[in-house]
């Protein structure tokens, strides 16, 4: 079943492509009202296409090892991506509410491929930076952090900003590397 479907898909058989798109549409359908309720500008068709491209990359590459049915694997990919998106939207909703993003031109950010970039950032960030950011994510104020670490508040804030810039540089480097890695 797997081999048959994969072979048909890889030779761009129209029926196999249609089947894959249908699986993605059905698997993601429970998330639809949820995701679009929060982010009005999210076009469902665009997200379907993003999901399709993500799954397509796996099926035509060598990431799919055939341990499960293709259908199950597709379902899993779609769910993982939708959960990532849901989590991101939860944060975005909070930000949007505060600054009314729609009116102030902050574009929606939900590129699914960013997960890889985020992991890369974490693996390259110095331990000291990571520790500072972990404290922030845990909900410590800069005053508490300053006291805990014995560093002046101003110095601490500058350190955190430097770490953020470093992380951005790592991510940008990663993007450039990816661009170089994709000559075909």
């Amino acid at each position, binding site marked *: 079943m797997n081999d048959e479907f994969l072979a048909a898909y890889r030779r761009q058989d129209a029926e196999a492509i249609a089947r894959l798109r249908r699986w993605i549409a059905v698997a993601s359908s429970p998330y639809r009202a949820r995701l679009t309720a929060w982010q009005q500008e999210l076009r469902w068709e665009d997200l379907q296409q993003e999901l399709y491209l993500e799954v397509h990359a796996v099926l035509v590459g060598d990431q799919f090892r055939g341990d499960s049915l293709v259908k199950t694997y597709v379902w899993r990919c779609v769910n993982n991506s939708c959960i990532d998106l849901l989590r991101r939207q939860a944060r975005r909703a909070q930000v949007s509410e505060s600054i009314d993003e729609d009116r102030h031109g902050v574009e929606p950010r939900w590129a699914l491929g960013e997960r890889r970039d985020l992991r890369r950032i974490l693996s390259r960030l110095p331990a000291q930076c990571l520790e500072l950011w*972990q404290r922030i994510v845990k909900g410590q104020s800069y005053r508490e952090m300053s006291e805990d670490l014995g560093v002046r508040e101003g110095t601490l804030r500058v350190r955190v900003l430097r770490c953020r810039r470093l992380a951005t540089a790592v991510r940008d480097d990663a993007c450039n590397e990816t661009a170089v890695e994709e000559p075909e």
Partner: protein
Amino acid sequence: MTTCDHIRELLPWWLNGTLDAEESAEVEDSLRNCAECRRALRETEAVFEAVESQQRPSSESLTAFAWGETASREVADHLETSPIDREAVSLARASRALMDPLSVEASMPQPPFTQRAAGWLSAAAAVVLLALAAQLVSLRQELARQARPSVDGIVVDVFSDRRIERSSSSSWEGAPVLDPERPLTLLLHPESDRGTFAVRLIEERGDVKVSLDDVPLSEAGDIVLGLPAGTLVAGRYRAEVEAEGSAAESFFFVLASPTSTNDAQ
């Protein structure tokens, strides 16, 4: 130091909600008026998310948990404190239910304590259940071959977070009552089994609250909609499902918080 530099420094703590009211207002004002600050916010947020993602179960773990592939204590504990991830698990279960025609009950959420208490007794029970399930599957296949049960053109399963209610209501009388404060997952089973559908959730007075086009059917002929808690306020609703060239099918449900239901009694 420029104002913009100052704002950039404060952004991490604005995101974690620990700035005082005056500082927060200062940041928000800058974000409204300064494109550079908004760019800095996006960068800050990306790092925040990266670190945050390290401190909670991955989406892969949540999916595996939702599908019953793991009974991770860590995930179960995390869900107790994360409403958004509880919703994610609920939706992942709904999605899983659409993959296999017969898996709706099998994929229903289980309270974490059930998994924690699993021991030899549950293993023995599992053997018995497997035998019963095999019989049940065969029975359901037989039933599926027969005419699909329906009332006024629609059969509906509604499950909300940790409970399932079945309804074949054709009016609000006797319709399922669900809690608007909890995430809802509506499983609709329209008569028609072809093409895609327009789905509308309509409030009693006729206001359309949710409207979706081109909603596909699963292979079992189901449509599942996940709705965030609070999307619909308390009231009486009708779910209308319409395929091109077919008459619309309706099903009725009521949203009322448990406290107001108790008060009414």
